[in-house]
């Protein structure tokens, strides 16, 4: 039903798609060699015409990004392989299974942007992908495709693999640049620090995602026109989607834009585990506002349709939640993530995400109050004004506003579920929305007895880190 581009080789040749031999025997590096003979203008125009959008989450035109490169030199290329958005694991597969495809994309991007040093910033928790990429880079160096005078030309290109240290924020391009410079991974203000103007070492820098550059050999091979025509809509080419949660067939899928969410979850994902009902899903990674079946199931999976419905495709991570999932706990888990990963520069994010986490935890643990949802909306308003989409940020980067997405979901769709927690003095669902050890999700509601002994006020459960009074006071002052 679909054209495979970036996952074609690993699909056809599952045992050796990562090797130079297989890569070259299936057409690899031809486009990089061709790119050597092209001018910067030609390459930028070709990629612009393909309407390739960045696959890291922001979905910005890759060609346009390249066109912004300031004239100062040296320029640098940084590949963002710091894949850390909860739900996302597509770059891991591209790195492990087809590293030469990315390297060819690196060569094309470097030539187009006159860069002679590229960095691949891989998250520290991905040592195996890093080993595969390094092995492929070593192969490319050995045959003269990287290093001094690549492909027999006078063009030098060094590639350095850099391991991250376990910080989600380094996926934000200016934080990544700081991290690569040996500083704390704190985002920089834009303007003035647009990487294309003042990036790595204050020099013009292109930061592109793994999947984005992995598309480049295909764009040059088929031509931007054909690439742009692959789908019948504005989102060109294919899109890697990571399916996880309560679906029968989780995994990465390379899809054309334009199928519906129903097709994605029920046909491609095989439906909900245990034939349960779908309660909600997150369409584009933990940062994205949630979707619910009665409003969004038949929408098209495109950037435009998703944006029009108030969310985003983001990193392509689809997290599916069945009818037995506690929405308060799911929200808590996502907000906890952003609180943990906040770099701490901006007060609304540093303080706000922590408040939200504590309020959600107290609701889940039976200390919730009737005003808590409104309180969370108020705190959220301080991070992301009006809880609008796209966010009206009060922060340097979008991390803080991302933490507000689950609060938007609770307010819009699951107010009753929050109230039920408050009324019952605890979570009306299983304690951890857990799957049973055999992998089935036996999410029956907790018995009355459980509720009365483990969730209620003053019970022996874990004490909240902050009392309701504290949160009220601090929150009320904003």
């Amino acid at each position, binding site marked *: 039903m679909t054209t495979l581009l970036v996952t074609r080789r690993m699909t056809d040749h599952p045992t050796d798609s990562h090797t130079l031999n297989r890569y070259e025997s299936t057409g690899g590096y031809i486009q990089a060699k061709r790119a050597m003979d092209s001018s910067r203008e030609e390459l930028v125009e070709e990629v612009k015409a393909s309407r390739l959008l960045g696959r890291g989450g922001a979905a910005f035109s890759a060609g346009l990004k390249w066109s912004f490169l300031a004239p100062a030199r040296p320029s640098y290329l940084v590949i963002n392989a710091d894949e850390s958005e909860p739900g996302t694991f597509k770059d*891991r597969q591209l790195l492990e299974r087809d590293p030469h495809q990315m390297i060819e994309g690196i060569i094309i991007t470097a030539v187009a942007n006159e860069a002679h040093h590229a960095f691949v910033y891989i998250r520290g928790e991905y040592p195996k992908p890093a080993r595969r990429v390094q092995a492929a880079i070593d192969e490319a160096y050995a045959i003269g495709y990287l290093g001094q005078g690549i492909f027999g030309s006078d063009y030098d290109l060094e590639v350095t693999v*850099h391991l991250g240290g376990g910080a989600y924020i380094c996926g934000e391009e200016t934080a990544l640049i700081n991290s690569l410079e040996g500083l704390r991974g704190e985002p920089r203000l834009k303007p003035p620090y647009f990487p294309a103007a003042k990036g790595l070492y204050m020099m013009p820098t292109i930061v592109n995602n793994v999947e984005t550059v992995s598309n480049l050999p295909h764009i040059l091979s088929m031509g931007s026109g054909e690439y742009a025509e692959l789908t019948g809509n504005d989102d060109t080419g294919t899109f890697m989607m990571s399916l996880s949660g309560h679906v029968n067939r989780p995994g990465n899928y390379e899809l054309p834009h334009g199928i519906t969410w129903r097709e994605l979850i029920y046909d491609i994902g095989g439906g909900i585990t245990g034939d349960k009902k779908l309660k909600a899903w997150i369409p584009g990674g933990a940062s994205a506002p949630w979707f619910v079946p009665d409003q969004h199931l038949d929408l098209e999976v495109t950037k435009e349709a998703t944006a029009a419905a108030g969310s985003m495709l983001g990193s392509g991570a689809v997290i599916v939640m069945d009818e037995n999932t506690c929405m308060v706990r799911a929200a808590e888990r996502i907000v906890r993530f952003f609180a943990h990963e906040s770099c701490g520069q901006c007060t609304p994010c540093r303080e706000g995400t922590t408040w939200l986490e504590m309020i959600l935890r107290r609701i889940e643990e039976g200390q919730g109050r009737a005003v808590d949802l409104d309180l969370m909306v108020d705190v959220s308003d301080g991070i992301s004004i009006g809880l609008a989409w796209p966010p009206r940020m009060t922060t340097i980067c979008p991390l803080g506003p991302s933490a507000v997405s689950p609060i938007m979901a609770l307010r819009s769709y699951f107010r009753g579920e929050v109230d039920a927690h408050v009324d019952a003095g605890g979570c009306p669902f299983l304690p951890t929305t857990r799957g049973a050890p055999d992998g089935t999700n036996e999410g029956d509601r907790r018995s009355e007895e459980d509720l009365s002994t483990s969730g209620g006020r003053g019970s022996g459960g874990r004490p909240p880190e902050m009392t309701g009074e504290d949160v009220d006071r601090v929150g009320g002052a904003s």
Partner: protein
Amino acid sequence: MSLWSETTQERAREIISRYPEKRSAVMPLLYLAMAEDGYLTNDGMAEVAVWCGITPAQVRSVASFYTMYKREPTGEYLLSCCTSISCMLLGGDDILGAVEDESGVPHGETDDEGLLSVEHVECIGACGGAPAVQVNYELIEGVTPEKARELVRWLRTARPKVVNTDEMQELFGGPRSFDWGISEEDGAIGPYPAFQPLGTVGSEGGG
């Protein structure tokens, strides 16, 4: 006068040569310092500062920013259980509970022997094979609470010198995010990422 062995110093020089500015080598050198001492000591961070031409305070500001730089003594095996959203939905909290219960080591701590450290972590990019754990950042997908208990017992009895992801996936794993395709012999030799250019990787053959 460096505190590091000649081999480690050679490695440090080589790492620094990969960057236009030596300060950029802070992160890889921090891993090197961890490999040298088992965790990040004050002396190790001071050494990194010398190599990178910055102050020890600047090194600590970087080290304290990231979760993978362990500034406390860490076990030979760091067992990280993912409890982020996708793993949580499929029982990640139960995996953490089983690991803590079987090992007697709660989140963020290390056993008396210095063998096993346990932590819960945010998303490790294994959502399609949830719930997932890592041992010294080597991945195991599709874990059950019982398999997680077996993993703890195995680490304590077998005490593998090299922690290999394929071996552990075979012994303790289940469904994966995607077909891993190719097996490899390299693995981790301590609680830091196994990556040859850092000199922190081990091979079954090489010992």
